[in-house]
């Protein structure tokens, strides 16, 4: 039954796309916060993988999905503390520290996983889902969109919240000022360092949460290097979405779908090299960059450390 448009196939595609898209959505929203405040967070890949590991371990030992998510956020926060101290407080190079965090995250999780489980990869059970009354009965998209883990809905709500937060709150304005012109924020009497620290902290938490979701809900298992560049993809999504949470969320879900095509195609009985499928999101990004790259927007003070009265 190689019918691409069979109901099950489409449902799997949508459902898988949402599950694959949520880690991207969380991480990319996190990156949006960080970039808006002027910190380019290249360590987000490392924060995700650490979050995936800590999230998995917590969920595995405490048998709780939600504690697992918390653990994931905690892992992300742990990793981003390094970035806060080195880049925001001391003003060190954000790119080098970002690369270091990613390498350290990948290395340390692999070492810890090896030390703990050897070469076995224990799996978690299925995670609970929350059905949205009525809506989940809609054919095709119902089971795909409205019968998901609660965090899926929360993640999408978060993107909406973030839009409002950026627009209507003082802190949102401060974040933007920190990325556009930090000396202006400083002159207005708001600490640039504190603003950026909180921004990076939330980025770490969100990236870690995304990693945790990836391991706990998405895969049900932790394997070394399992994020496979999704952190970098989050950065690109953030750039393409011009840091606007709604666009970032939509783009994340689209990329999620392209990540989940493999499974859907297998269901449809179509055999395509998984390598090719895995390349698709990256090819999509390159095409998007070639077409829209000129229109991407980065805050003027991005990646520049702020030192008051620097001369």
């Amino acid at each position, binding site marked *: 039954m190689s019918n691409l448009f069979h109901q099950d196939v489409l449902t799997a595609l949508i459902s898988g796309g949402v599950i694959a898209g949520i880690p991207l959505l969380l991480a990319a929203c996190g990156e949006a916060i960080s970039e808006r405040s002027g910190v*380019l967070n*290249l360590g987000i890949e490392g924060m995700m993988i650490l979050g995936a590991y800590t999230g998995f371990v917590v969920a595995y030992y405490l048998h709780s999905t939600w504690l697992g998510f918390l653990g994931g956020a905690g892992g992300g926060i742990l990793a981003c503390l*390094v970035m806060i101290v*080195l880049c925001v407080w*001391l*003003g*060190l*190079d954000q*790119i*080098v*520290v970002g*690369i*270091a*965090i*990613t*390498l*350290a995250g*990948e*290395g*340390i999780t*692999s*070492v810890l*996983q*090896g*030390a703990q489980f*050897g070469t076995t990869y224990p799996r978690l059970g299925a995670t609970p889902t929350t059905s949205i009354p009525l809506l989940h009965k809609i054919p095709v998209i119902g089971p795909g969109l409205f019968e998901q883990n609660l965090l899926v809905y929360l993640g999408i709500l978060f993107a909406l919240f973030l839009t409002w937060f950026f627009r209507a709150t003082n802190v949102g304005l401060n974040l933007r000022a920190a990325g556009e*012109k930090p*000396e202006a924020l400083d002159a207005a009497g708001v600490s640039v360092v504190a603003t950026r620290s909180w921004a990076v902290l939330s980025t770490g938490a969100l990236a870690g949460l995304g990693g945790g979701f990836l391991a706990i809900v998405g895969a049900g298992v932790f394997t*070394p290097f399992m994020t*496979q*560049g999704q952190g*970098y993809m989050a*950065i*690109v999504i953030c*750039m393409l979405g011009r840091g606007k949470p709604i666009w970032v969320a939509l783009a994340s879900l689209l990329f999620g779908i392209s990540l989940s095509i493999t499974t859907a195609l297998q269901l449809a009985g179509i055999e395509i*090299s998984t*390598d*090719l499928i*895995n*390349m698709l999101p*990256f*090819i999509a*990004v*390159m095409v998007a*960059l*070639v077409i829209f*790259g*000129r229109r*991407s927007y*980065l805050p*003027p*003070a*991005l*990646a*520049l450390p702020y030192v008051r009265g*620097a*001369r």
Partner: protein
Amino acid sequence: MSTVPGNELLTEVEVPNRAGDRSGAVGKAIDTVIRSLVPVLLALVAGGVLLLILGHNPFAFYSSVWEHGAQNKAWQESAKRMAPLLLIAVGLIIAFRANIWNLGYNGQFLLSAAIISGLAPSLVNDLPLGLAFLILFVVAGLVGAIWTIVPALLKAFYDTNEIITTLMMSFIGVGLAQILIKGPFQDPSVNIAQTKVLELDKMLPHIPGTKVHIGVLVALAAAVVVYFAISRTSFGLKVDVLGANPRAARHVGIQVKQLIITSFFFSGLLIGLAAAADILGVWGYIRANWNPAYGDTVIPFVFLARLNPLVVIPFIAFFAVLSTGGTLATQEVGLPTDFLLVLVALILLFMTVIEFLGRRRSLGQSYLTNGLREALRLPGRKKDGAAAEAGETPKKVAR
């Protein structure tokens, strides 16, 4: 020359960054050495603490690394490992000096490696061995170079951030390599996804008296050539100007677009050569999902060597020992070899911290060129310079 009032800052003179400079006191040299070595030592100590936590004896581990990486005949393994590492390092140096973050080295390397592994078995049998090697090296270099073209064009013409584009191209390159290995280059005689294995006598010849293949000499020669190019030729100076201040490069009439593409090209070329040296010298074939990620591990040493292609050689030698010895040592104690990745990350982190302390004491020079720090700034933006007039330096405002 005496300083004049208002020019008091002149008393604080730093040694120019350019290679081949005449000034440079012994004290400064010692200081530089210390600043280069301390991060490595600190990382080894911190790694040792980690080992202790994991229940291993760090001293035993490090002596095992030394034993497996340098003693007896083991140094020859390390020397062989140097070839790809050094070529990648030199390739990164060209890009980094030009203020270009070529982070697509994994894709450039693996794609070259896959294509070389696919072509080599027939070429070495059909052609004279020397000619076959020559062609294979050229092909490998070109593949690596070509894989930089899209990011290079995007950066040169649209100013698209190359960190992102090279990373994306890297993932695509790695995927494409897998498809090639599993598809057209698959060895039909085995069930595993891999290419045909080269016969031992059809691989790169050894340096007489050793088991070290001549790819290592290619790497060393490349380092010397690039050193000369950087320190003596007009290309090198242009690259340095571009790296330090892209707007100045445009102002003084350097063809910036062309130079970005050229620098990218040579960077990818050297990384491609690294693949040829490694495949033809050590492995003889490539397996699917094999990704040594040499480039990841090379980055800290490139910075520690202050982007100098000769100074990077001892650092690479050190890491080659750590890498070959460490692979065996970690296996011995049952740790994943990714422990080495942790060490590398620690070196990078300590490097930035030492850099910070050094800057505080305003000693020596920075690990990074000014421009590299600002890799993400768009052109046309002003930047704060190092100069300061007493009390009145106009603070340049971004845009």
